[in-house]
């Protein structure tokens, strides 16, 4: 359990620092790379929560595909080296109290309702078969619907990208 505590703290710090840098960084590509560290930290947290399959999916889908897509899009259009101006709204200062209020309310509600419930101690890894049984069993219809969403997204992307 010691290891889990220590690694939770390390990943949590990485994730929070990375998330703050996504919001404050003055370069779009840097923001994207900081987001990669947040996503990698999330994958680490999933492994700590004995959700290996979700962690690997996180790496495959987010780091391997979504972030590459982001960087690709950024670099195709405009990706200047060095600092960029006017990335923030002029009234950016107003966002901070709103976000703090949001965080305060959510964490109050979470601590109030969950208190200090301990995680179960057993470190049994959720096997892939259990997840697939779940997705292809009770969730079959949503799964189907989602595959249509993906198909629609693919067709939409092709339509958007075509010049003629």
């Amino acid at each position, binding site marked *: 359990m010691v290891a889990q505590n220590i690694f939770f703290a390390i990943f949590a710090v990485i994730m929070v620092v990375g998330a703050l840098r996504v919001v404050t960084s003055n370069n779009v590509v840097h923001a994207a790379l900081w987001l990669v560290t947040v996503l990698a930290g999330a994958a680490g947290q999933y492994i700590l929560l004995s959700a290996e399959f979700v962690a690997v999916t996180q790496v495959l889908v987010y780091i*391997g595909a979504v972030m590459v897509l982001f*960087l690709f899009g950024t670099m195709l259009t405009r990706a200047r080296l060095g600092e960029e101006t006017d990335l923030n709204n002029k009234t950016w200062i107003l966002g901070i109290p709103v976000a703090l209020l949001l965080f305060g309310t959510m964490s109050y509600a979470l601590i109030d309702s969950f208190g200090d419930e301990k995680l179960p101690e057993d470190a049994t890894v959720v096997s*892939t078969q259990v997840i697939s049984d779940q997705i292809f069993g009770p969730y079959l219809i949503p799964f189907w619907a989602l595959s249509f969403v993906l198909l629609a997204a693919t067709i939409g992307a092709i339509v958007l990208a075509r010049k003629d």
Partner: protein
Amino acid sequence: MSALLAIDMPYWLQTILRVLGGTVAVLLPAGTIVYVFLFKMMSFMQSRLGPMEAGPYGSLQLFAEVGKWLQKEDLYPDRADKFIFKIAPIVVLTSTFLLVAVVPFGPDAWFTNFEAGVFYALAVSSVSVLGILIAGWASANKYSLLGGLRAAGQLIAYELPMVLAVIGVVIQAGSMNFQEIVMAQNAGEIFGWNGIGNPYILTQMVGFIIFMIAVQAELTQTPFDMPIAESELVSGYMTEYSGFRFLMFFIGEFATAGVFSLIAAALFLGGWGIPFAWFGWDSMDSIDNWMNIVGPLIMFTKMMVLSGIIMWVRFSYPRFREDQLQKFAWKVLIPVSLLNIMATAILKVAF
């Protein structure tokens, strides 16, 4: 499972041994591939001798080259994004080291016995795209950026047929664990005859061919070397790199070739195993301990054969055009691999 070579080791010793073993499993194939194929086979195919001076038959040439690279100055362009420029080759190399972690070399000689190992390997191999992309961007060079963008487009396009080709194997073995896939191949039988097991190259021939083509593209080897096409882009995303950062890209390229060959050997050629029927083994626990020594050698042999094919193709074929490359991935490889999955699934249910 913790008794490697019948010696019970504490956890920390096993961990150290596994990390060291992983380093060897990345660097040894890379060095061997560079010497045997890049130096000697390429020279033979071009009717020349290749390096002959350093060591017998030039076998120490590689050490001389590494020494040369290491003493070069660590240069970076003036307008480059220096931090990202510096970490980019490390990202590429890290992806290779993470990739070898799931490759099994024997009944107990594995680095980690991950349950969804195949899935993990495919996921981690896609991280190198990130390194290549930011290397191209951070170089502050138009050719580098173009090379990085070409590489990203190519690697994403060829990752799909690779994943889809492996799914056929996963369906047939009924597992995503490398050890169980190796087991299933060596304990299998062909129409009741178990003399050679059932290596999936026989039943998954289509998948194997697609996988090897996709590997060729993932490694950006000719005929898929548009990202570093020297006649158009100087050297693509590697243009501005020199010294040991170039060495990292270079090691990454050939080490990844070796690791992908190892993965292909485990998936399609029966991995570390010999047909279990020869010695009457029937489960993982009944395998004799000497397989932990012989297994790595078998894997190494298969790796050399497969990477030999990769290099042979590399030295023989001219380069594709960029549009042909994308068309080939999306209009040929992906539909064929989807058909392969369908056929495998139907046959799996039918038998």
